[in-house]
């Protein structure tokens, strides 16, 4: 088996690199061990003269430790942390491999000596979609004993949801139940996890791979695999912590007058160096709150005179989420006895169902200091939107498709923070802060000749605009078929003229639409899928990739079930067989979902 080549960024000229690669390729493991030890010893013997930073970074003082980094990721955060941990681990002489929960069965866990788990929680306490089977297996009676396995769990979640970090908590407890040893305490993190996660990873790795007092070996182990592995996600240049500035160059409500919808096409011009993304990625927007809401919040605690405080919380703090943590903190801070009745989970769920922080502070009013108020608030998280463009078609631009979220409850008009930030509080020419969230589990097939079937409702059509644009730019010849659903044909056919152009040019081969409210019976995309099942099966036989994007509860679940039925039909309607077939497609990367 061929060894991976030396990383391109290794500190050698291209010529030397080629020479070294040749040499390394035909070397035996023994030769390589000898050589690395020899070279390390050589520098040590030279007393550091000529030593460079890269060499200093080579950890010579640690024994080699195997480590399985297991992740369960929905939006890619846990996955990114897992790969980041692997990089750090390599420096600590850990032989780390990263494994997706979607690709492993629980039985093989028992073989891992050391296990670091990065897992997020989705919706109302559910595991990420690709991790569902693993999770079920782990929780079942059939799960193997894990005596002798050392582990640690990092749990991602959102305090805005009642069952905060539920999946991580349960996995942590279950591993212990199965006999594994918790070597480092679990941490539960909110969306602003970056710094805390990094610190936790360092501390966790220190436990798995402690530095030893005395140098025990002259041979330095270099983990060749740790660098330049093909399936490792590239880290984006612009992150939530370090966003890029973008200028809004277009902002159009795509729904026709009289629509019940409000969906904005937003074009962002990003001049930042190296800003790029792949179709299927998400663009994060760092929003700001409605200043009026910030003022209301300050007024509720008697701080409305403090203009700079109002500006500060409007810009950087989450002032809408009403979480258990906030209620507890507020109760503790104010010592209000009447808040005790909200500590019951059910009562809190009922109270917070359609209320926000401002309601808590207004209904249980207390005077607070600015510091006390800030102490109650978490940083305002970014909001991710599936990118609706290809950067190849629009250099330096990212286009987003954003549904304005608005509702009324308890006598108050409310709006989604990020969607109304763009829809109402920003105009063309204004600047916004954005970042890139790659999603390698939602991407075009590498082979441009592969047919693709794209299923999306509402804003779920966004990535497909990027897909088709990308395929036009790359000259991909594969067929494409779009299933689009919304409420009304006349006013809600998002990007209609563009789809018409793509059909005319052949960039889009087929389109089917489902408009639920145009006729007495509701017609959704899954109904169109079922109608077209014969052709869908034929496309799958031709190697088509299936994509689903949009609302999980409102669409993706029904689409999933329909796909099972479609796959089951040639198998005598055996839905278990259909489900297995769909799983195969998932494993093969041919059924990809971006649902929210």
């Amino acid at each position, binding site marked *: 088996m061929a060894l991976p080549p030396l990383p391109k960024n290794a500190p050698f000229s291209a010529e030397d690199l080629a020479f070294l690669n040749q040499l390394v390729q035909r070397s035996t493991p023994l030769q390589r061990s000898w050589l690395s030890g020899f070279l390390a010893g050589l520098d040590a013997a030279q007393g550091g003269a000529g030593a460079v930073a890269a060499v200093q970074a080579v950890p010579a003082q640690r024994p080699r430790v195997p480590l399985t980094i297991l992740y369960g990721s929905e939006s890619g955060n846990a996955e990114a942390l897992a790969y980041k941990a692997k990089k750090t681990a390599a420096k600590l002489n850990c032989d780390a491999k990263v494994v997706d929960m979607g690709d492993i069965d629980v039985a093989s866990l028992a073989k891992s000596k050391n296990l670091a788990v990065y897992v997020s929680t989705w919706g109302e306490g559910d595991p990420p979609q690709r991790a569902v089977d693993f999770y079920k297996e782990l929780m079942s009676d059939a799960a193997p004993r894990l005596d002798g396995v050392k582990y640690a769990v990092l749990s991602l979640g959102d305090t805005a949801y009642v069952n905060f970090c539920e999946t991580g908590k349960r996995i942590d407890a279950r591993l212990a139940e199965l006999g594994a040893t918790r070597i480092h305490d679990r941490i539960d993190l909110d969306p602003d996890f970056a710094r805390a996660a990094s610190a936790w990873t360092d501390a966790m790795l220190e436990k798995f791979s402690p530095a030893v007092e005395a140098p025990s070996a002259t041979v330095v182990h270099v983990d060749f695999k740790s660098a330049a592995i093909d399936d490792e996600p590239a880290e984006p240049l612009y992150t939530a912590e370090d966003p890029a500035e973008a200028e809004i160059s277009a902002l159009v409500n795509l729904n026709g007058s009289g629509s019940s919808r409000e969906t904005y096409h937003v074009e962002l011009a990003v001049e930042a160096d190296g800003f790029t993304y792949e179709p299927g990625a998400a663009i994060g927007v760092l929003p700001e709150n409605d200043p009026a809401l910030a003022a209301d919040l300050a007024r509720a605690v008697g701080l409305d005179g403090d203009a700079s405080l109002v500006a500060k919380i409007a810009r950087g703090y989450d002032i809408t989420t009403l979480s258990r943590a906030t209620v507890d903190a507020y109760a503790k801070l104010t010592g209000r006895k009447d808040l005790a009745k909200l500590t019951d989970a059910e009562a809190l769920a009922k109270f917070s169902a359609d209320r926000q922080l401002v309601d808590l502070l207004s209904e249980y009013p207390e005077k607070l200091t600015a510091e006390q108020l800030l102490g109650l608030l978490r940083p305002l998280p970014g909001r991710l939107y599936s990118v609706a463009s290809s950067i190849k078609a629009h250099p330096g631009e990212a286009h987003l498709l954003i549904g304005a979220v608005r509702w009324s409850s308890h006598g108050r008009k409310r709006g989604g923070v990020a969607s109304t930030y763009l829809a109402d509080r920003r105009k063309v020419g204004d600047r916004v802060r954005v970042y890139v969230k790659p999603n390698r589990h939602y991407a075009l097939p590498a082979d441009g000749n592969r047919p693709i079937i794209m299923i999306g409702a509402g804003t779920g059509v966004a990535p497909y605009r990027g897909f088709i644009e990308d395929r036009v730019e790359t000259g991909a010849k594969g067929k494409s078929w779009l299933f689009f659903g919304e409420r009304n*044909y006349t006013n809600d056919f998002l*990007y209609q003229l563009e789809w018409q152009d793509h059909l005319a040019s052949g960039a889009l081969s087929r389109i089917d639409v489902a408009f639920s409210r145009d006729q007495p019976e509701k017609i959704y995309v899954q109904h169109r899928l079922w109608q077209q099942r014969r052709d869908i099966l034929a496309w799958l036989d031709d190697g088509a990739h299936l994509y689903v994007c949009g609302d999980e509860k409102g669409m993706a679940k029904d689409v999933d079930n329909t796909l099972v039925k479609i796959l089951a039909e040639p198998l005598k309607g055996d839905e278990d067989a259909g489900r297995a077939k769909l799983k195969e497609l998932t494993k093969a990367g041919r059924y990809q979902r971006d649902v929210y």
Partner: protein
Amino acid sequence: MTERAKNEVVKENSRLLRGGIADGLTHVETGAIDEDDTMLLKFHGSYMQDDRDVRAERTKKKLEKAFSFMIRLRLPGGHVTPEQWLKLDDIAGTYANGTLRLTTRATFQYHGVIKSNLKRTMQAINAACIDTIAACGDVNRNVMSASHPFLSKVHKEAEKLAIAFSNHLLPRTGAYHEIWLDDQKVIDTSAATEESEPIYGPLYLPRKFKTVVAVPPDNDVDVFAHCLGYIAIVEKGEVVGYNVTVGGGMGMTHGETDTFPRTADMLGFCTPEQAIDVGEKVVTVQRDWGNRAVRKNARLKYTIERVGIDAFRAEVEKRCGYQLGAPRPFSFTSTGDPIGWRQSLDGKAADKKWHLTLYVENGRVKDTATVKMRTALREIALAGGVDFVVTSNQNLVIANVTAKQKPKIEALLAKHGVVIGTSSGLRRNAMACVALPTCALALAESERFLPGLITDLEDILDSAGLREEDIVIRMTGCPNGCARPYLAEIGFVGRSPGLYNLYLGAAFNGTRLSKLYAQDVNREQILKLLEPVIKRYATERTEGEHFGDFVVRAGIVAATTAGNNFHESVVLAKA
């Protein structure tokens, strides 16, 4: 080969009205159908339209025009049962814009049906035992008959002729059933099994063809405005025959004086037994003699203008194989509807039913915040035991009401804010076409503009003491003249947004066309121009003299004595 109008080629290549309609319906990426197919679709009773109010915003929103379809029913005689009314009302709510539009040719129109619902709407209409074939297009369109069939035995005869003639001239192509009904025939509208068009031929007519049956003294159907008219001649309560008129028509083109509205000529008298045959021969002569090169000169009125009525009559008689009789005397009093209750004209006093002619502004049956006419009519239909008849003035007759039912119907109408009378004689005699935002031809507002203008004019009428005076006022958004504006005593034809040509001097009974009085005038100018004329009329009119007759006698406009002098002797008033 002589040059032919584009429509002629489309018809020829259409495989008897099929074209690409069926395929066009399957293209889900667009709400439109192919342009050529839109011409053919008219023969099936539907026009493709788009909401012109929102045109400007659509491209920016990456949306095509807001296309939808108007569907017109073929309803000779205009009568529907309560059961049918309920079905038609359902369709309006389910597939159309929530309104039923009564038309100036006594049928129903739906607006705002989108392409994906077109076929199921057609099927729903057919399930109500009504079809839409030949409601538009270059064929004999919906046939109107006088007032309503329950008024007298004679009116019933008029309706029978209307239905029989409409059915006789139905296209025989199977295209309609094939495209809309999946060949399921709820009602058999294609008599022949073999597919050919024995009367029309494969090219159908050069242009639309309109037929009506009138029963004097009412000229509610505006008999002289139509290609073919039957005027019932009644002796001792029986129809003894018909005076046949030919060559009437409203449409013209702005700025082209070789186009003009025309009142029909008298062809001659025929017996009831000959009526359909004579009509068919009129149609076939027009089929063969009509202008298929220049579409705007293709209607029967121009054929007759070109060859003369005598030559035309000779050809019809030749094809009939018999001579037509000399026209019998008759006289018309008015073109309007008698709003309110009236009883049947014949029968035993004890059996006489009541009939309520309900004024429907612009023919639009709808619910507003204060007036819930659609709901009221629905409830009346639900109660049953009556009949509904659409009039040629966009009004509705609730017919066959017993004395016992009468107060119940009045109560139902009152409950939903529907007033039986109108605010003035002017409004009682008002008619407007649909125009903006759906009609593709509209140059200006009509249905959305006329009611407000009448309100303004009512102030002037009040000050002249003429509020209850019957004056015929009509408006159209383009010169095609769906609301027959050139036969109105006060007529408006749209020129561009907010601007109208003002016509005066037509006869109250529909026998004389009007004359252009002012060009490109806006609301303010209209009021300024009409105020002195109305005031003069109030003081100078003779006993019983109608407004249209007065303006001619007073020399305010010259009389138009025939279509071909419509554009002559025009002296424009200064606005």
